[in-house]
């Protein structure tokens, strides 16, 4: 390396280091602002919902799951019928990976008697998007080791990305700006139930989805199984079991036939059977299949459907909860016919 080249290097490195330092300061400052608004502003109701689950929820019956649970299970109805204080902690678009990261965080602070975990029949299929969606947990990465283990599944270098203080709040700036500038305070989700009143438009093609031929077609849908999701489900069951929390797994009614005879469903049943955990599979419940007007779309119930379903689920749960005996729910379940 000659003198000119050495000087070139020096000049360049000096500029680069100065720029990196400026970036570190800016990243810290912007990250701190975003962090403040994430934790202290009520504008983002879904972020607030997750914060409540992690930091405050003290109900005795906690519902976990995806949008299927969030839109279909009204905890107020469960509470009214079972007499157990309930909260719907489901998060839209999330999978068992997310629930498995959230459960120990919740149990560390509060141990509910019952957890109702909603799963889809295709839950264990490999879907890369479920890893991307774990980004919703990034604000909790720093403080919870259980979250770290799961979020690290997103990529090999997630811990390096987390060196940035902005990164956990990536894509949230517009919501924050909108809420702060307009002073908008979205009403919190209350008991976590987030319903859609709209009735699904039914055209002739949609009707096919509930016919027998569609069920037959569903048998052919065999996607690659995600071993990490399998492990997450086993882990979820064991964590609940270790903490003495009763676990019940539910599948909500759907018009679409995706996964109804899938390997995923068989694997879910196998795991739950092995741990003696009841599975309430309503995904092909004839009562709901006969009422497409109870659906918001092919896999989510609307307000009316959710009310019917919550009553039905509450009745089953009530039957399972034997207040007068020492039976656990799982033992009792073996005597109850599968409602699905």
């Amino acid at each position, binding site marked *: 390396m000659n003198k000119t080249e050495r000087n070139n290097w020096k000049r*360049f490195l000096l500029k680069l280091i*100065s720029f990196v330092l400026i970036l570190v300061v800016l*990243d810290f400052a912007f990250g701190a602002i975003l962090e403040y608004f994430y934790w202290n502003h009520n504008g983002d109701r879904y972020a607030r919902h997750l914060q409540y689950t992690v930091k405050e929820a003290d109900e005795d019956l906690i519902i976990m799951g995806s949008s299927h649970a969030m839109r279909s299970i009204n905890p107020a109805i469960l509470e009214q019928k079972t007499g157990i204080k309930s909260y719907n902690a489901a998060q839209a678009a999330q999978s068992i990976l997310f629930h498995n990261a959230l459960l120990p965080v919740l149990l560390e602070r509060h141990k509910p008697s019952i957890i109702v975990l909603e799963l889809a029949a295709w839950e264990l299929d490999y879907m890369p998007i479920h890893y991307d969606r774990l980004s919703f947990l990034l604000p909790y990465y720093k403080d919870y080791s259980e979250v770290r283990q799961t979020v690290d599944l997103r990529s090999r*270098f997630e811990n390096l*990305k987390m060196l940035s203080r902005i990164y956990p709040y*990536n*894509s949230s700036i*517009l*919501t924050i700006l909108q809420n702060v500038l307009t002073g908008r305070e979205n009403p919190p989700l209350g008991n976590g139930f987030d319903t859609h009143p709209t009735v699904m438009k039914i055209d002739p*093609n949609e009707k096919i989805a509930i016919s027998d031929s569609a069920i037959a077609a569903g048998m052919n849908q065999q996607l690659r199984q995600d071993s990490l999701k399998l492990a997450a489900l086993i882990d979820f069951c064991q964590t609940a079991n270790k903490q003495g929390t009763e676990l019940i797994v539910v599948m909500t009614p759907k018009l679409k036939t995706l996964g109804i005879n899938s390997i995923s469903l068989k694997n879910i049943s196998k795991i739950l059977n092995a741990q003696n955990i009841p599975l309430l599979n309503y995904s092909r419940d004839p009562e709901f299949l006969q009422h497409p007007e109870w659906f918001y779309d092919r896999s989510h119930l609307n307000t009316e459907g959710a009310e019917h379903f919550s009553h039905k689920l509450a009745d089953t749960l009530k039957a399972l909860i034997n207040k007068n005996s020492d039976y656990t729910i799982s033992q009792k379940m073996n005597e109850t016919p599968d409602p699905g």
Partner: protein
Amino acid sequence: MLFNSVEFLLFFPVVVVIYFLLNHRYRWIMLLLASYYFYMSWRPEYIILIIVSTLIDYFAALQMGRAITPQRKKIFLLLSLFTNLGLLFTFKYFNFFNDSVRAAFNTFNIFYDVPAFQMLLPVGISFYTFQTMSYSIDVYRGIKEPERHLGVFALYVSFFPQLVAGPIERSTTFLPQLFEKHEFNAARAVSGLKQMLWGFFKKLVVADRLATYVDAVYNNPQEHSGLSMILATVFFAFQIYCDFSGYSDIAIGGARILGFDLMENFKRPYFAKSTKDFWARWHISLSTWFRDYVYIPLGGNRVVKWRWYYNLFITFLISGLWHGANWTFIFWGALHGVYLVLAIWFTQPVSRISGLLGLKSESGLNTIIHVVWTFTLASFAWIFFRANQISDAFLIIEKIFTFQGPVFLSNLSSVAYGIFGILLLLLVEFQHEYGFFNIKLFNNTNVVVRYSSYAAVVLLILLIGVFDGSQFIYFQF
């Protein structure tokens, strides 16, 4: 290894530092090893294809150089072409060809059951095979002397910044650079980093953000309205531009830091005033490749008119097929061929109408009309490029023209980020194209403005970029 991965952000600085610390004589070895590592981090076994292509072309070119008769020269050219096209056909087109033959036979109730080839498409195979084929053809034509240094030739084939998605470099301009001694130059390094930064912005903030909307609509065309289709199509026009030109920017910028000059691959294509102009600005390294090795050998425009039109159409049809083994790409290429032929037919009537309307060819209004019209034509063709199958493309077009239903807006903030990215991109490109505002940011003489603009782009990437490590679209070609 993807450019938009943490792996690359660690790999690249290490390569740069070792490269400049090494004696010039050994740098090619280091770059070759780095390039092979870069490629093998995706799927190690496919490096064999690059090595086979390299060895055959090296050997064929040497033999062409030694050949006494034109026939012998031709034999070795054919050896090179058959090897590269054979690799391409086997790995990229066999299943498409097989399926098409099966479909044709089935129409006549003829049993045909050749099994599909169960292999993944090797990343970048269309790029490196075209780059080496151009070398063999140039040696055959006597434009380039055969390269005797096998190692440097192997580096020409596999140079990591442009290995998997171009620009497709010519041996006449790029090979000599591999022998030159490149000293570290701070100004070049800064300029390279700036171009890389802008490439990351295009990919992470614009392309990947728009992809979420485009994928949602194009993967379920039955469930979306005409308005959503229009929005998704416009978004796709910017997605593919930012995805591919973003890759090119990172490749060109990275190579510049190492001391190499790669050719410009995109020149603000959505400011083109005609389809011909569009192709002078879009994927320049490929369009000039097709011009020099397909269109001109077919006779170019120095033939009778019908033959000229045929040459244009065939060149674009092949270009479509180059992009992918699917009828959608063939339609896309054919459509561009038709655009160009129609443009020739309508040149005079259009200028007459413009004259009657009093529109001067250089007037602002005329420019706007031509730019918008060219963008509309390009976007319409993108429908075929993006659709998962040809029937989807026709369904999308039908829906666009029926124009019914609400706009799909499931994630409003994501759409807003995408639109913001497009506007910022257009503003920067508008400035480069017309120099209207006379504002300089990355190249401002004031150090505060310059550094602030770099920092603003990095912050934008961190704030609204998509970090799911998605692939570049052109990797599949």
